[in-house]
């Protein structure tokens, strides 16, 4: 009744090309922005910001990066965590080695470094595809982490590659409190998500999707495969790199290369599976789900079964639930949470008179 487009006319091309064609969506979007941008940091406590909201945002960004590569351009990657590592360590080195480097510039440079590395490891995609490519991206995962540990220059000669992020200062204001860090992360993530949304709606995104659906056909009708695929790798790595830098600077503070291991790559992959492959919204839903699930299980499992079973039981139970849920999701809704949201919207448009 409330959610329908009746009476909303598109009178100009600009209106036709809007991200949210329905007014209710636009209002909903701004309400969401206000809630998460203003109300949440004012109302929630430090635990929520530090342990839940900031990681959800950062992983959303990483998932967004992988989604661009896997969901839109169709190139499966198992090395997203490595590109996060590149971003984190690049940002650290830019801040460390260049005097007076502004944080935001370092962030962009970190993203660009990561993009460059991404292009290098994306080169094989021109020759190989499918599972062969997925395995090839594992090379990136192992090589990058090894290189960051092995060459002490990257971590400024600290032992075993552990680095501590410098203070984040923008225009003389130092982001120290969790609220400030949250707002900063939120703004960056929101901006980049908007950028991604527009990218996938434009010719770039259409080229990616054409390559995803059938690369030979896309090539035949005139898309340049090399450019399209490498651009997807570059943009995806850029997003992962920025996510990695944020991970170091606004979330953890102290990072080591081993933290960006294969497990994290898989986690990011799960986020896009559960959230929805080929959906910007899905990246956020998936990240929220994967970050919240272990926290939820940590609290619920001992409450259900008591403490007698011990920590080992809880962690194994988590593994089982995790694996089971992934299989369940793939069977029940291969298009993820984003698809459920889509279906809900379609239903809502007709509600309460479906005929």
């Amino acid at each position, binding site marked *: 009744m409330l959610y329908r487009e009746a009476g909303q006319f598109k009178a100009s091309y600009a209106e036709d090309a809007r991200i949210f064609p329905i007014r209710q969506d636009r209002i909903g979007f701004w309400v969401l922005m206000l809630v998460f941008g203003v109300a949440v940091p004012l109302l929630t406590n430090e635990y929520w910001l530090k342990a839940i909201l900031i990681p959800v945002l950062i992983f959303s960004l990483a998932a967004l990066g992988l989604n661009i590569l896997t969901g839109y351009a169709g190139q*499966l990657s198992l090395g997203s965590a490595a590109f996060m590592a590149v971003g984190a360590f690049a940002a650290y080195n830019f801040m460390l080695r260049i005097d007076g480097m502004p944080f935001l510039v370092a962030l962009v440079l970190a993203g660009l470094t990561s993009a460059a590395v991404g292009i290098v490891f994306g080169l*094989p995609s021109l*020759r*190989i595809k*499918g*599972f*062969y490519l*997925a*395995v*090839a991206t*594992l*090379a990136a995962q*192992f*090589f990058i982490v*090894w290189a960051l*540990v*092995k*060459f002490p220059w990257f971590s400024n000669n600290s032992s075993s590659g552990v680095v501590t992020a410098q203070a984040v200062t923008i225009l003389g204001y130092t982001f120290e409190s969790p609220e400030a860090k949250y707002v900063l992360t939120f703004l960056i993530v929101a901006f980049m998500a908007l950028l991604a949304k527009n990218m996938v709606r434009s010719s770039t995104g259409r080229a990616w999707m054409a390559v995803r659906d*059938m*690369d*030979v*056909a896309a090539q*035949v009708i005139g898309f340049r495969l090399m450019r399209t695929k490498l651009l997807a790798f570059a943009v995806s790595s850029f997003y992962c790199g920025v996510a990695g830098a944020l991970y170091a600077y606004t979330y953890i503070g102290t990072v080591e290369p081993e933290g960006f291991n*294969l497990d994290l790559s*898989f986690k990011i*992959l*799960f986020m896009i*599976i559960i959230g929805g492959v080929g959906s910007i919204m899905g990246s956020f839903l998936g990240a929220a789900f994967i970050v919240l699930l272990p926290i939820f299980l940590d609290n619920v499992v001992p409450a259900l079964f008591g403490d007698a079973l011990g920590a*080992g*039981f809880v962690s*194994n*139970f*988590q*593994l*089982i*639930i*995790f*694996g*089971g*849920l*992934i*299989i369940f999701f*793939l*069977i029940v809704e*291969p298009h993820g949470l984003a698809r459920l949201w889509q279906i809900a919207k379609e239903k809502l448009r007709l509600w309460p008179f479906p005929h």
Partner: protein
Amino acid sequence: MQFFIEVLIGGLLSGVMYALVALGFVLIYKASGVFNFAQGAMVFFAALTFVGFQEVLPGWLGLEAGSNMVFWLAFLLAFIAMIVLGIATERIVLRPLVNQPHITLFMATIGLTYLVEGIAQMVWGANVRGLDLGIVDEPIAWLMDNYEIGVSKFDLFAAGVAASLVALLAILFQYTKVGRALRAVADDHQAALSIGIPLQTIWRVVWAVAGFVALVAGMIWGARNGVQFALTFTALKALPVLILGGFTSVPGAIVGGLIIGASEKLAEVYVGPMVGGGIEGWFPYMLALAFLLVRPEGLFGEKHIDRV
């Protein structure tokens, strides 16, 4: 030179162990087109089940611990567990996902990995156990005395097991009715269905066979490094073997395993010191990657032709 040969042989023999794990991947990929990421977890599950039964059986049946009887009974029970796991996988995971894109199935097997790891540790506990096959890991005296080349008895034994396993699989594939059906399914699902080969039965058989391979691989790896969670990472070592040999070829898995094993050890010894060591972790992938640039379908893989 002696040193070179020693490293080479050691590498080749460790390559055999990779090949054992890679075999399980190839079997399932050939028959069902599923890239089964859970193979490593299955190796872990199989080894843990075997050791677990070995521990509890003497108590249950009043047998003498460590006797042959216990060994074979545990082996049999672990094999049955793997068959059950295979059938359950087919029923619960694969059947509802029929006709989904390959990538979805691949992701489902990643979920399966977590599930199997969790169940294995929940049932048998997470502590590291030893597994004794009765073969000592020491150099063969005769070779050591005459040529001063150290070749581990255990490695040689593993190679023997792998060779007989491959022979067994070859016989199964070439000379039995099930084998013919398996090859037909591997060739073309629809054609196989239309001449009356029950696809789902074949899948169950394949998963059971892959479970058997995982059990053998798990026992050998377990005897080498102890039965522990790290066994699941053997699957990752098998991946470059696979891309080198081609996903669909049994000989490819063996040859790929040998190449990866040998080159990885040689690289670690001769190139490693130049860059600070520890390159074993990524060298196989880089090698496989470089190789793929020349031959995208691997050594023995089927050439892929795209039709628009």
